[in-house]
């Protein structure tokens, strides 16, 4: 576990195996909240916070409680429990300190709980057999990649809103087509082997 390998994990999770364009995790808020760049940034920050902390906590619970107790097969349930509690905590915190962001995110904040991206990050850390530091870096990078993807997409969608799309494509259909095209662009990163 050198600095090089940590940087490698970071770049891989942000660009090469981007959560939205390569792994297709967390698409629901990606399509639902990408109409305004400001909401997209807010959602990205919330997801980053949740993903990083939940990965750390789930790794700790897995290593120090589930493995010694022989209960690795119950990790999915345990991780969902922890992620749900964390999101509740963040909801309470946001409602008190940044009410405008709380109302802007609306229904999508509790949706982070069932968001496959968060559970995916937690499970992937276990699957890749990272230690605590690598898990934190991996999930932070994944969340940064997710945020980058949603902000880029919000910018593109703002431009698409001004164009004359055919009536049957207006709204979600053209958004899905645009997302496909961006995913194809990101496919150019696949297979890149970092030298560290």
């Amino acid at each position: 576990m050198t600095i090089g390998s940590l940087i490698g994990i970071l770049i891989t999770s942000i660009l090469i195996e981007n959560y939205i364009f390569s792994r297709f995790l967390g698409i629901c808020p990606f399509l639902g909240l990408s109409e305004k760049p400001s909401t997209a940034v807010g959602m990205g920050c919330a997801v980053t916070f949740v993903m990083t902390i939940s990965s750390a906590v789930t790794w700790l619970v897995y290593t120090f409680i589930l493995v010694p107790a022989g209960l690795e097969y119950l990790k999915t349930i345990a991780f969902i429990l922890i992620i749900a509690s964390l999101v509740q905590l963040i909801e309470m915190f946001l409602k008190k300190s940044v009410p405008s962001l709380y109302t802007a995110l609306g229904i999508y904040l509790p949706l982070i709980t069932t968001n496959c991206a968060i559970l995916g990050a937690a499970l992937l850390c276990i699957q890749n057999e990272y230690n605590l530091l690598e898990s934190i870096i991996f999930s932070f990078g994944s969340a940064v990649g997710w945020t980058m993807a949603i902000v880029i997409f919000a910018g593109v969608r703002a431009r698409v809103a001004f164009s004359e799309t055919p009536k049957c494509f207006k709204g979600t259909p053209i958004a899905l087509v645009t997302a496909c095209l961006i995913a194809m662009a990101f496919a150019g990163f696949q297979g890149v082997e970092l030298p560290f």
Partner: protein
Amino acid sequence: MSNILYALLWFAVISGVLGLILAFASRLFAVKTDEKAEKIAEILPGANCGGCGYAGCSALAAAISEGKAPVNACNSVSKEQIDAIAAIAGVASASEGKRYRAQVMCSGTNELAQKKYVYAGINDCVSANKLAGGDKLCPNGCIGLGTCAASCKFDAIHIINGVAAVDYEKCRACGACVSACPKGIIQLIPYDAKHWVGCSSRDKGAVTKNYCSVGCIGCKICEKNCPSGAIKVDGSVASINYDLCTCCGICEQKCPRKIIWSARSQSEEGIIRFKQDLSL
């Protein structure tokens, strides 16, 4: 069996700890809710148009319950709703505010107004305005690409035949289109106003004649004939002072350019169509 019990025990412990943490956090992050504001917000339309001057309906509800805003601040509520809001807030009720509507002060449709170039850029008036003031020859004419229509939350303004037109019934006078228009030619006039001058041209009469076949040339015939002195020409274009206007219609009859419109009947969609209304 003991395996299941063992797993259940561990999960009970984990859930218990998480529950305790959440209970503690809910005390720490408790937010006091203002019940009066919530009840008032339920009566308000919830469109968050900002016409009252506050940042959305919940902000207005909070201001009313604190006594900072008048109970009739919202243009979109009926008298019964104002009474209900006043009852919740515990203050005296007020009458409905005077109703206004937006009016686009331009009649330059595709047939009537001349264009200076063919525009093939982003479908947005603000963008077109950056290219020498838009494709219409008149520098104060409606560009007609729909920035106002996109900004309206009530679906009350549409682009018809190259110029924006307001649906009087749907309009809530929130002012979104007034700020959205890059030419600044949308005005809020009283809902009952029967006449308006459909032109904002700031150029002399001879120049305006080249721009558009109906533009106001500032000839002052309306001003000379108005019995109440409500319509005045300030340099190049006429405008009506609605405090003085008596809706007599003399200005509309006398105008040689037929640029003073009257709000006669509306078409089935409730939107004024310029050429068709000329015969009514």
